[in-house]
């Protein structure tokens, strides 16, 4: 089984390629990259005028499987991911039951092999049941296939337990991802604390709730000399704190999500529950700081935080609406439209943040087009303009505040381990 991708603009940061080349795939591996590659027999994909990138890697998503399959499951979640150009995704452990033991990890990996169309990597819980009390069996999680640990959705309140989690996980060389939130400061808050929350009469979540926890993790990472990864950074001061820590040599990495560089708290006006997300959408100066952090490399990863919810969980009073938005099918076009097109970052930086870094931080051996690596590729047209239509999403859930947004950047092909799963924009 051979496939030739012809004439596309290939970007691979690892092998330092940024030009129009052909790529030959054989038996699920990349076997040749060059000009006018000789080819007999097989599938030819004409990619002239398009970019050929390493398959996108998402370091942060929610597949809701097991337990909340009415929102999403492994089949629909991976189909949605493929449609958005992702070939590898790491799913958070806040399922029911929580991914806090090897049986659940194995359930996910085996179900993903049967029903999934992209590579799925479970993230285990730091604490049993994500309760923040006792460490989960981190070693067993790792050996069962978990690529990181996180209590995402719930912060670890207990600083001592966080320190122990860092120390203990370092034995197994597994990444610790922190969801930073001081719950006492969050209190009953449902959106960013500021002018818009005052005007809407909604209780606010101060930026400080995130920043205090970011500070704690940075201090613990410096103290223990163990790396930490900060999930979904949303505020200006968080970016500054992480930049400062990096300058001190602290081994910290972090991610942000498209909604934090495209939307502000004003999206919540009219009690728009589609804009309710945690951490909450912030202000224009935060959006600018996030973009600055992406530009200067402080922010390593663009993750989706794909968080599907049923419409009945969004079509309710703002205070009780579920947090989060689907992200697989908008992450790439939003990144192109709001970061690449305005000149904030280059296509190579985009590849770093959506392929290379997430793969490196999670230890996946993905995110590259080197000869011999598994043939995970995404072919996109960054100039094609269209309007986001939630009804076209392949996710089970449609909770996106981006419906009707005019964007640029269309996924033409998604290839996973040499198999074409999206062809000419159509999910197979």
């Amino acid at each position, binding site marked *: 089984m051979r496939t030739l991708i012809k004439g596309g603009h290939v970007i691979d940061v690892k092998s330092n390629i940024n030009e129009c080349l052909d790529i030959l795939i054989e038996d699920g591996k990349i076997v040749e990259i060059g000009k006018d590659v000789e080819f007999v027999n097989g599938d030819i994909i004409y990619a002239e005028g398009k970019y050929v990138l390493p398959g996108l890697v998402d370091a942060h998503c929610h597949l809701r499987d097991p337990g909340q399959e009415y929102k999403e499951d492994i089949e629909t979640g991976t189909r949605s991911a493929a449609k958005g150009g992702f070939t590898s995704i790491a799913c958070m452990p806040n399922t029911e039951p929580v991914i806090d033991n090897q049986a659940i990890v194995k359930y996910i990996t085996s179900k993903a092999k049967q029903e999934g169309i992209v590579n799925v990597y479970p993230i285990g819980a730091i604490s049993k049941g994500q309760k923040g009390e006792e460490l989960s069996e981190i070693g067993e999680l790792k050996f069962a296939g978990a690529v990181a640990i996180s209590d995402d959705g719930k912060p670890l309140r207990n600083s001592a337990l966080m320190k122990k989690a860092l120390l203990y996980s370092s034995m197994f060389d597994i990444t610790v991802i922190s969801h930073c939130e001081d719950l006492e400061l969050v209190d009953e808050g449902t959106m960013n604390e*500021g002018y818009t*929350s005052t*005007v*809407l*009469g*909604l209780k606010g979540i101060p930026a400080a709730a995130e920043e205090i926890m970011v500070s704690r993790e940075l201090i613990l990472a410096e103290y223990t000399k163990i790396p930490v990864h900060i999930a979904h950074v949303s505020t200006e001061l968080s970016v500054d704190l992480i930049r400062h820590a990096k300058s001190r040599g602290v081994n910290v990495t972090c991610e942000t999500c498209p909604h934090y560089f495209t939307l502000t708290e004003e999206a919540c006006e009219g009690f728009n529950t589609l804009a309710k997300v945690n951490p909450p959408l912030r202000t224009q100066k935060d959006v600018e700081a996030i973009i600055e952090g992406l530009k200067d490399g402080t922010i390593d990863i663009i993750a989706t935080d794909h968080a599907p919810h049923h419409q009945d969980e969004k079509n309710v*009073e703002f*205070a009780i609406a579920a947090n989060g938005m689907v992200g697989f099918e908008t992450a790439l076009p939003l990144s192109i439209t709001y970061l690449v097109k305005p000149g904030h970052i280059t296509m190579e930086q985009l590849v770093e943040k959506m392929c290379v870094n997430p793969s490196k931080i999670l230890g996946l051996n993905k995110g590259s087009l080197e000869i011999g690596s598994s043939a995970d590729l995404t072919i996109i047209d960054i100039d094609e303009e269209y309007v986001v239509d939630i009804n076209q999403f392949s996710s089970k859930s449609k909770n996106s505040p981006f419906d009707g947004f005019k964007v640029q950047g269309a996924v033409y092909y998604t290839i996973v381990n040499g198999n074409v799963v999206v062809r000419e924009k159509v999910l197979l």
Partner: protein
Amino acid sequence: MILKSKDLLGLKELTAEEIEYILNTAKTMKLIVTSKNKKTPHLQGKSIITLFYENSTRTRLSFELAAKYMSASSANVSASSSSVAKGETLIDTGKTIDMMGSDVVIIRHPMSGAPHLLAKNIEASVINAGDGMNEHPTQALLDMLTIIDKKGSLEGLKIAIIGDIYHSRVARSNIWGMTKLGAQVCVAGPSTLLPPDLEKTGVKVFSTVQEALIDADVVMGLRIQLERQKKGLFPSIREYSRFFGLDKKRLKLAKDDALIMHPGPVNRGVELSSGVIDSERSLINEQVQNGVAVRMALLYILTRRDSVENIN
């Protein structure tokens, strides 16, 4: 004239002209409230529902009487706020009421934005009778009517609102409405009970009650909820009263003819001293009377939308 919207969700959404139109209509309605024969046919054949997810005495009673004085059929639905979380959704409840032929649904709800959600999902007009910390527009309209009765207009008046601004839907509605009609609103309260960036709405924010009171034409005290103390927002009722309570001595800072208001129910001796409540300058009872007139005006305006639209 008709209101742009089928609903009255807040004063934030209304123009100055719309607010004046409601207040002028309310002045006419007041003649009915104060007359011996309180029955008019304005709402004959109309169905009015009050849907209250929070306790209320005066607001609910005043809406019910407003509907009855104008010959509407009215009914009440009471739902404890706990049933919101576990029972039927607001939209489902609203649709049920809608299908029974109601023309106006009056809702009070502990969560900000609940009336907006209801309004989007039902045909009937929705009147917000208080939603979370967001708005209580009919209270603000009756407050404004009361001030206009005494002062002629709101233009150029200095109005001091004192107390828990953060949690107060009354304060928010009054800020929107009074500012639109040309008043300068000044607020003061414990800094833990002031919402962030409030000054961006055009309000002057003070940290002492004295600064806010200087030369005020109107002084409005807000109810302080005792449970806020447990959340650590202020240390004690005693200390609150000492620094933010309104008594005769403190009120000397305001203009000599300053009006005293309170949306009720009052914690006597906490927000206002009994001497102030019972003084001639206190308009607390007039506020209640105007409440019925304002609610009659709104029911009248919202139920005649269809006929006005047909004429146009």
